[in-house]
């Protein structure tokens, strides 16, 4: 009994949860990239993003974690599904894989993996000497309107342009006469 309770500390539980989240992220990502069926890809992406959201929770930011779900899963993934339904005829068989391309991609990605892995290993990460502990959403909002106001405006503009652009580009289908 004692052994169990010693083993079942919050830390171990948290670690288990963390491993689960990582597993979710990576497995999801693999499905997102590997599966042949495009719809499975999107669902894999959703799973992966769910995992990422969990990671954000571990990184102390429930706000960003929820925004991740709201924006990425709730908006982007759904939009992708929508595009799939609008564009690709679902009943067609997936095209065969191009072996050269897959091989090349694997080599390229592997190379980058090695490169960045080495970079990661060899870099000394040093924390800032003074660190604030203010994690509140209010501060984020404050930053949006002060230090990062310009980016904020730019992003707003970008979204506006994207919206108009999306409407203009995708328009021109059949309309009700």
């Amino acid at each position: 009994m004692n052994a169990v309770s010693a083993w079942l500390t919050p830390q171990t539980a948290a670690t288990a949860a963390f491993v689960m989240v990582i597993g979710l992220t990576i497995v999801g990502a693999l499905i997102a990239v590997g599966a042949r069926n495009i719809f499975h890809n999107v669902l894999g992406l959703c799973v992966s993003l769910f995992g990422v959201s969990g990671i954000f929770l571990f990184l102390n930011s429930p706000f960003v974690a929820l925004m991740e779900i709201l924006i990425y899963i709730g908006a982007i993934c759904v939009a992708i599904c929508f595009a799939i339904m609008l564009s690709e005829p679902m009943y067609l068989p997936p095209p065969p894989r191009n072996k050269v391309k897959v091989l090349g991609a694997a080599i390229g990605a592997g190379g980058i993996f090695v490169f960045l892995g080495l970079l990661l290993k060899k870099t000394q990460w040093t924390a800032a000497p003074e660190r604030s502990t203010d994690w509140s959403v209010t501060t984020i909002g404050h930053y949006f309107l002060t230090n990062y106001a310009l980016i904020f405006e730019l992003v707003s503009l970008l979204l506006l342009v994207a919206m108009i652009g999306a409407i203009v580009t995708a328009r021109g289908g059949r309309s009700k006469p």
Partner: protein
Amino acid sequence: MELVAQLLGSEGARMVVGLIAVIALVSVNALFLIWMERKVAAHMQLRPGPMEVGPHGAFQTVADAIKLMGKELITPAEVDKPIFWLAPIVIFLPVLLSFLVIPFSSTWIIRDMDVGILLILAFSTLSVLSILMAGWSSNNKYAVFGAIRSVAQNIAYEIPLLVTVMSIILMVGSFKLTDIVAAQSGLWFVVVQPLAFILFIICATAETNRAPFDIPEAESELVAGFHTEYTGMRFALFFLAEYTNMFIAAAVATLLFLGGWHGPFLPGVVWFLIKVYAVIFLLMWFRWTFPRTRFDQLITFAWKILIPLAFVNLLITALVLKLR
């Protein structure tokens, strides 16, 4: 990290108990709501509704539920099996999670998160995904239609919903549901923000796919919409989720606009439930009164009227707050 440790530490027991309570609540609530819907509909339609099974048909939905559990689970040959199986579960999980942050009274709450309302909104978007999964995997044209419609509708109605909620959040200055309710101890926000309340109710009706916005499952057009191919318990889960979603939508409306648990004489929980069921009754009333809107009209309504209005409301709220 600290947060996670806390989540699984002293709070653990509370959460487990809470979850069990939630599951019980969800099932009882859904049974009750379905019965209520049938009775409300029946009385609006000059007929008694379920009468024979139990007093005034009280056990009717119990019988339905038991029957559905005993039905054959058909998996049609052409479906995309894993997704077909997962969809009913996926539609149910976010609904359950939303209960984590709903305060039934000042103390009856499983976890009072700082970003509570955001959690509900974020998870409510997931239901679209499961509808998509269900519709797509069924490999049935009606189901796909239902799914596509549902997505288009949800994209259109999510925006005004979020913007409307933002105006309340702006007034309170917090995402925390208890804070929002506490801010209404004097005046309910429905008085301050009547337009927002109306917008919210309309959007919530559309989000929960209820008439007159029930086009994803429009019977006369799409047979049963995205769940055409589902049988037995899987179908029951969709039903359950729909009614639980309704409860959540009504609960959020109550928390944001109707003062949550505030009210004289009775305990907070009772007040909360009274308000929630009143809102649900309103939604039912809509359903049994209005014809269904047409798909394009529905989308046009959202983009041309609701979204501008929601933004105007937000703008006015912001201005009044800034200048007050």
